[in-house]
């Protein structure tokens, strides 16, 4: 039962690029960005841009009763999970789902709920909190919601590692399948950070751009926040083959490290080690890798450090790699970004199309790789990695390859 092969059989994505994975992929291929001027009923914030789910009407997806206990981040998780499970052909398959896992990452959890209650208590001086504040806003709410809505009765929990939350959740699912604990895992992440308190807090960090997100460019000016959820269905190869499932890709390895250094500044050693460990775990030599979906936040220090790490690990092969940041299209959806990016990486490998780094102007002299500027590229991809390097020095890299 040990070291079983793990394959990806279902994908779901809701983001600024649209309400499902098809919209997501079509936008990525077209190089279309979801970053727009913020039009929120929130005053007194410096942040002017964001990538919100367009025309999102939660009542199309949930009843009033269901919404009473669903924070926005749980709503997004359930919508993407439902899509992924449906894509895998498992909707309503209670005999399989009852033993599946639901492992959902989140960078910030149910902040809409928490902040609404705090506003009522602190600002409006209301005497009492709404009794559903705890079950709706608790950090684990998304896993519970996915479990309840899809009938998943195996292990379910939320995992937090800031912007790497999705990658860590996906890796956890992969390892549980590899070790024989489960056969099927619904994994990914969800975040909905457009709340007054979070926007003010991100303003305060001075890492947010007010013109746009331009990863790896000389004139890059920071990240732009997004929201959304990316969910994948992982299965043991045996399980997927037995039921004749379509297989997008094989998940072959991971690298996880911690910087043990600074709370926000990325560390070249921690990042380099994470990439090296992922290659080693996957059984890849550096030359095997065709595509890297970069962390690529668009901040000065991240993009330079990530580029240097890629150069160190891949040496002469670094110049042959296609390295793109899809954050310039779906925004930085915090923990959800890493899951959305593995969905993007999987679809890139599946279709043989590399989504571009959009908003690209002129490369920074310290960013000297092929970032596939502005236009998607047709390229056969046999192996790819997806990088996630979170605040707090929590690094996770996932390696996938074509299934054969």
């Amino acid at each position, binding site marked *: 039962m040990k070291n079983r092969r793990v394959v990806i059989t279902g994908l779901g994505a809701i983001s600024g690029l649209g309400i499902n994975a098809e919209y997501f992929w079509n936008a990525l291929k077209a190089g279309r960005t979801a970053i727009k001027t913020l039009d929120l009923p929130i005053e007194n914030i410096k942040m002017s841009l964001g990538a919100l789910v367009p025309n999102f009407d939660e009542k199309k997806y949930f009843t009033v*009763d269901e919404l009473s206990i669903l924070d926005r981040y749980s709503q997004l998780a359930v919508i993407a999970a439902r899509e992924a499970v449906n894509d895998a052909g498992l909707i309503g398959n209670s005999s399989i789902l009852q033993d599946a896992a639901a492992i959902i990452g989140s960078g910030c959890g149910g902040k809409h709920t928490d902040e609404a209650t705090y506003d009522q208590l602190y600002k409006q001086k209301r005497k009492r909190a709404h009794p559903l504040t705890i079950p709706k806003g608790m950090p684990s709410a998304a896993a519970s919601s996915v479990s309840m809505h899809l009938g998943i009765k195996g292990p379910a929990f939320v995992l937090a590692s800031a912007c790497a939350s999705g990658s860590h959740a996906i890796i956890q699912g992969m390892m549980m399948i590899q070790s024989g604990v489960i056969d099927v895992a619904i994994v990914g992440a969800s975040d909905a950070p457009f709340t007054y308190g979070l926007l003010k807090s991100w303003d305060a960090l001075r890492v947010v751009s007010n013109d746009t997100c331009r990863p790896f460019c000389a004139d890059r000016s920071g990240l732009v926040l997004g929201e959304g959820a990316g969910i994948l269905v992982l299965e043991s190869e045996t399980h997927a083959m037995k039921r004749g499932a379509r297989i997008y890709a094989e998940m072959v390895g991971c690298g996880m490290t911690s910087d043990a250094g600074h709370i926000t500044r990325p560390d070249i050693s921690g990042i380099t080690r994470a990439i090296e460990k992922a290659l080693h775990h996957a059984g890849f030599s550096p030359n095997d890798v065709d595509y890297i979906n970069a962390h690529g936040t668009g901040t000065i220090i991240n993009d330079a450090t990530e580029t240097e790490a890629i150069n160190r690990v891949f040496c002469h092969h670094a110049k042959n790699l296609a390295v793109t940041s899809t954050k310039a299209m779906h925004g930085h959806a915090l923990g959800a970004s890493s899951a959305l990016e593995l969905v993007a990486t999987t679809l890139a490998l599946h279709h043989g199309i590399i989504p571009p780094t959009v908003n690209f102007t002129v490369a920074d002299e310290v960013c000297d790789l092929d970032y596939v500027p502005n236009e998607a590229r047709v390229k056969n991809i046999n192996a790819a990695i997806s990088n996630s390097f979170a605040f707090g020095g929590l690094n996770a890299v996932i390696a996938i390859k074509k299934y054969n």
Partner: protein
Amino acid sequence: MIIEKVTEIIVNIAHCKAEDVKPEKELSALGLTSLDTITMLFELEEAFDIDIPNELIPSIVTVGDILEKLEGVKQPA
């Protein structure tokens, strides 16, 4: 007025018919779960500007029990 407000709160939470909300009716029979009941108590506290102590909760079984507890409170805003 009090019965009307209580009925409105229960109907909104339980999605039952207003004519079914009668003093002798048990809250569970109207479809209220334990979490719904907690939500109802919150709405009652808000509407009547009162505090309902936890100790009273076990004795609130029927709609009439609520009305009894609300006797003497001011009319809802």
